[in-house]
């Protein structure tokens, strides 16, 4: 291979090994997520149940409880991680993430609003969340693009907008206590008690979103080089950025619609992946999707088994793991040679 298109030899191998590890981690997390818990289910029973839903106790536990939950955590993790990659590239800001710049809160606010106004229409929630995510992303983006707004301003603006929207969520849950029976779980983020029904049509949004992210990964790479370079290469910067923003909002909105305000996934996962994958967005997105799914599924498993029979919420586990990592990240970035050049 004289003219290899991607990076060659050793580094290429390392990246592929890392991606393989992410895939293995995802498979492990799915198997453990389905098999471990109050009732231990042998892996063989899981496969048996997959092939033939025989109405046995284990089979019923798998289909009614464990599998929806595992599928939800995989989808939420993958969606938030990919959304994080997109937003970081679009805003050229490594510290941006859907939860940090308020997108999750925007999705959450609209989701809760939909629940309050149309109590029986679950299928509306993902769309409402998507619209909320889109509006927030638009607002933050306009602030970010305003002449002279630095990367710090963007994060601050995001935090401010996010806080306002969180206040909005709390207001709605105060006035419409019935709207969100598990409002606390929603605010912290949880996939407990989820059913396959609640995942529709969110899963479609997520699969389409990830597919779009991968299809446009070349464009995302170019977008991250800055507007001027992107334009000089003949790219329709405004159109591509709009598509990318919609994709990111769609992913975050869909995840929030069934798993609540999970934070940090969109920040931590892309950062871990960036540490190993440096050849471009396609692999970054792919690896982030696998690792995001694995991370959230493992965290959800921990939330169930750590203090069994008590269950702590998924968002809490993610924060316990995510916050120390974030602090480590901030400390490491400070002295780095590509700090915030705002």
């Amino acid at each position, binding site marked *: 291979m004289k003219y290899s298109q991607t990076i060659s030899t050793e580094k290429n191998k390392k990246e592929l090994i890392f991606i393989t590890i992410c895939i293995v981690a995802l498979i492990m997390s799915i198997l453990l997520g389905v098999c471990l818990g109050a009732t231990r289910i042998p892996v063989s029973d899981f496969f048996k149940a997959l092939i033939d839903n025989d109405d046995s106790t284990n089979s019923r536990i798998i289909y009614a409880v464990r599998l929806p939950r595992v599928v939800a955590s995989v989808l939420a993790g993958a969606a938030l991680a990919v959304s994080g990659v997109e937003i970081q590239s679009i805003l050229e800001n490594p510290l941006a993430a859907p939860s940090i710049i308020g997108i999750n809160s925007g999705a959450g606010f609209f989701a809760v609003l939909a629940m309050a106004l149309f109590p029986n229409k679950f299928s509306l929630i993902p769309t409402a969340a998507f619209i909320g995510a889109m509006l927030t992303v638009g607002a933050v983006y306009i602030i970010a693009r305003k002449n002279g707004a630095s990367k710090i301003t963007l994060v601050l603006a995001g935090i401010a907008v996010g806080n306002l929207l969180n206040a909005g969520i709390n207001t709605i849950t105060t006035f419409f206590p019935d709207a969100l029976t598990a409002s606390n779980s929603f605010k912290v983020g949880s996939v407990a008690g989820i059913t396959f029904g609640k995942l529709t049509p969110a899963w479609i949004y997520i699969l389409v979103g990830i597919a779009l992210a991968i299809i446009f990964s*070349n464009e995302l790479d170019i977008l991250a*080089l*800055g507007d001027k370079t992107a334009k*000089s*290469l*003949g790219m329709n910067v405004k159109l591509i950025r709009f598509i990318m923003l919609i994709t990111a909002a769609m992913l975050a909105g869909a995840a929030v619609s069934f798993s609540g305000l999970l934070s940090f996934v969109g920040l931590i996962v892309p950062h871990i992946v960036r540490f190993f994958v*440096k050849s471009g967005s396609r692999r970054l997105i792919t690896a982030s999707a696998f690792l995001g799914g694995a991370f959230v599924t493992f965290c959800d498993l921990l939330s169930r088994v750590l203090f069994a029979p008590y269950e702590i919420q998924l968002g809490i586990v993610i924060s316990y793991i995510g916050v120390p990592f974030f602090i480590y990240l901030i400390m490491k970035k400070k002295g780095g040679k590509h700090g915030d050049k705002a």
Partner: protein
Amino acid sequence: MVIRLENLCGGYGRKQVLFDINAEIKTGEIISIVGANGCGKSTLLEIASGLMKPISGNVTVDGEDVHSMEGKKRAKLISVLSQQKSPGVLTVRALVYHGRFPYLGYPRRYTDEDRQIVEEAMQTAGVSEFADESLSELSGGQQQKAYIAMLIAQNTKIVYMDEPVTFLDINYQLELMNLIKRMQKSGKTVIMVIHDLNLAMTYSDRIMAMKDGRLISMGTPKEIYEKGVLGELFGIETHYSKKENQYFFKKL
């Protein structure tokens, strides 16, 4: 091929920074735009290259308006080395491949020709030995070279460069100037904003001298020197040494 700037006015928001620029540039010229900080050089480059729309006036290449050209078509004719560059998350090689972006159709497959052009561009720019390194982990100078390689891969007739020698050591600065000369020989037109007056005066065919958003003089380095334009622009004294074919500058 003729590039024509006609009555160009430009600016940001309500602030006008360019006033009525007129110029004609022919194929194969090396043009340097010089002037003090904030005189509108980079704005002129951005408008002339089609990256930014003018307030009024127009830029044409062989009579065709640059600003109404379709993006990819323009990118096959005009390439720009921008001053503001982000390292992104990609390797040098991946970056240089993006120089072929305007030539890609659907599906996005690189041809053998693309691959060959990319490898040659990396050789020419001297980035082959760190082709597989991540751009964000390289020094400013290496990043600059990587971007130059991308520009070479884009292979356009008209090349704009904003501060091309930034971050480069003197050896590579001169190497880049030789590269620009080679580009000229292959029929390309190079238009650059450059702070280093020595390089500008030595390597350019013509100089565009700007002050406060206006083009106050345009001519060969010799004409610019004889008219004493640089003194007016920068408040310096210029001296030409015939023996060394070199210009020297002194603060007044």
